[in-house]
């Protein structure tokens, strides 16, 4: 996982001691502590899950499946470093991403293009002013509108920091296909954003 990503953008509801206690209690299958951890990390986990779907129900399904895996394996969990909360968030993030991938593979309705064609798509750079005018909600909404295959590759590469090799292993595709889908995801995303901000984006649309 790319260490550039800041996992401390929002304040934690649980202190390190509280998290340590509840993690231990979850290892004993204590329902009260499971609920505490679920509530505390709901927003953080849902922010990951709903990028991989285009509807709330699928996002909730990925979220709950992810937490179920966490509670099943929590007795094996050991903090990777001194910061207990950051360690736990990183572990939770990884599980949510893998759960989203599993969900995509299980519900794959769109075939991912397996081979790159010989055409290299030229994508022009996006104007910085136009980028600044994009709100975070619009970007997320636009990502959600991508095709499932493109959306998955885009999320894995751009946001979650997986390499094309890792993506190809996870999705069962070649690295070339992964690159192709990423390129197509960018194009589609720009078109969507163009639709949101048609006058500004049109100037820079490919």
């Amino acid at each position, binding site marked *: 996982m790319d260490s*550039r*990503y*800041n996992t401390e*953008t*929002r304040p934690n509801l649980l202190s*390190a*001691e509280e998290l*340590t*206690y509840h*993690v*231990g*209690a979850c*290892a*004993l*299958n204590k*329902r009260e502590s*499971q*609920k505490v951890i*679920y*509530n505390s990390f*709901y*927003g*953080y986990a*849902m*922010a990951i899950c*709903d*990028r991989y779907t285009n509807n709330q129900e699928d996002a*909730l399904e990925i*979220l*709950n*499946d992810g*937490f*179920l895996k966490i*509670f*099943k394996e929590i007795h094996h969990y*050991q*903090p990777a470093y*001194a910061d*207990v909360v950051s360690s736990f968030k990183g572990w939770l993030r990884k599980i949510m991403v893998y759960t989203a991938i599993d969900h995509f593979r299980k519900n794959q309705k769109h075939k991912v293009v397996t081979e790159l064609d010989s055409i290299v798509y030229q*994508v*022009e*750079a*996006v104007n*910085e002013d136009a*980028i*600044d005018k*994009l*709100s*975070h*909600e619009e*970007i*997320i909404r636009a*990502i959600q509108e991508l095709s499932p295959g493109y959306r998955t590759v885009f999320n894995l590469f*751009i*946001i979650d920091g997986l390499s094309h090799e890792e993506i190809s292993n996870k999705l069962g595709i070649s690295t070339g296909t992964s690159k192709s889908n990423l390129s197509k995801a*960018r194009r589609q995303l720009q078109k969507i954003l163009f639709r949101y901000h048609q006058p500004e984006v049109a100037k820079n649309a490919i």
Partner: protein
Amino acid sequence: MQFEDFDKKVRQAADQHHPNYDEKAWAKMERLLDRHLPRKKDRRRIILFFLLGFLLLGGGVWIAVNKPWQKNEPTLSTLVNSSANQKKQAEPADGSKKQDASPADQQKDKQLQPPQPVVTNDNTDVPATENKLIDKKQNNNSVADLKSNKQDKIQPSSIDKDNQVMIDVTDAGKAKTKKKNDSEQDVAVNTPPAINQSLPDQPVKKETVQEKKYETIQNKLGESKVVEKSEPEKKTDIEKKNDNVADQPKIKEIKTATKKAGNKKKSSLFLSASAGPDISSIGADRFGKVKLLGGAGLGYTFNDRWTVRTGFYTSSKVYTAMPKDYKSPVPIPNPMYLSRIDADCRIYEVPLSLSYNFGRTEKRNMFVSAGISSYFMKKEKYVYMYQYPGGPLYPYYEHEVKDENKHYFSVVTLSGGYQRKISKRISLAAEPYVKLPLSGVGYGKIKLNSAGILVSANISLFEKDNK
């Protein structure tokens, strides 16, 4: 790198994206957990609860049915009095023969009571003063109770040697008898008048001995009078021997009654209130603080020997555990710097013990006891003391647990004690004890030992005062 800014914007958007909490989401999650990670119901607790309930219910029903406090154990005095009462009821006051008494009853009466003087009716018209007949089975008392003055002397007269027993009276008030004929059953004893006085001829009535306390006295005028028998002044050897023989059944029966009264063990239910100092330790060298243990109990004693006790007690356990003693279910942060764990726990204890009583006297007894207790950790507070290299020892963080850990039948208690009665119903007991855990207790699963002295005031229930 042309999309670097755009990618950065996208990542920022993703980091800032934080959906609101949905309450319904947990409901769905809980259903998922119930299906895949169901909570195990501790059926053992339910089974133990019902078992304890059945035992208490059964014990209560048994006590209610048998009512051990209402059983009247016969004592010696009650036995003798009851026999006297039975005798009074069986015999009229005038000492006349009871016609409807069965031979067995008559025999029994004779055995219980000392022989009574009677007036015999036989065919021989013998002056009463000169005829003394002895009931061979009811001997010396009737004969020896002769009252006469010094002037009275009885000279042996012509008597039917075949049917009567000769009595030699040498002094007033004394009589000696000689058994001549074993077939003689009845005896007539009269206080002899003066030997020189002539007595009117009076037929001597033959009566069986019925009343032990009365004797027929004939005065100088020949008038018979029934008076209360006085103590025998002296007995002859034969009389003594006969006494022993006659008294043996009575003594034997009294002894049996005494034995029965003595062997009848008392069973009793009692309440107790207890308090005393209690100290906890881990191992044999690390002791905690002395705290007060107190509570109330209920006990039942079987046959003065065995006592079953239970109750409810509360105490504080304050101790210090080393990291190696403390088995936390949760990974402890920076365990290499953890120095110790200071614990302060409030526990509820429900013991169940069996005691053996010995050295019992009327006032005191000693006992040894063994039992097993259940610990309910009401509140646990743990302070984790850390010490970094070169730094001071300081409390890193505190952790509280409430009403979480329950340890059924997990602590063995061994004790001995001394109990002393201070009144009919109340007794005091001092009981040193040690408590040894069968498994770890509390959040850290500590093998916590305890020791102390319990002082109890026991109050017997349903105890009758003997008047």
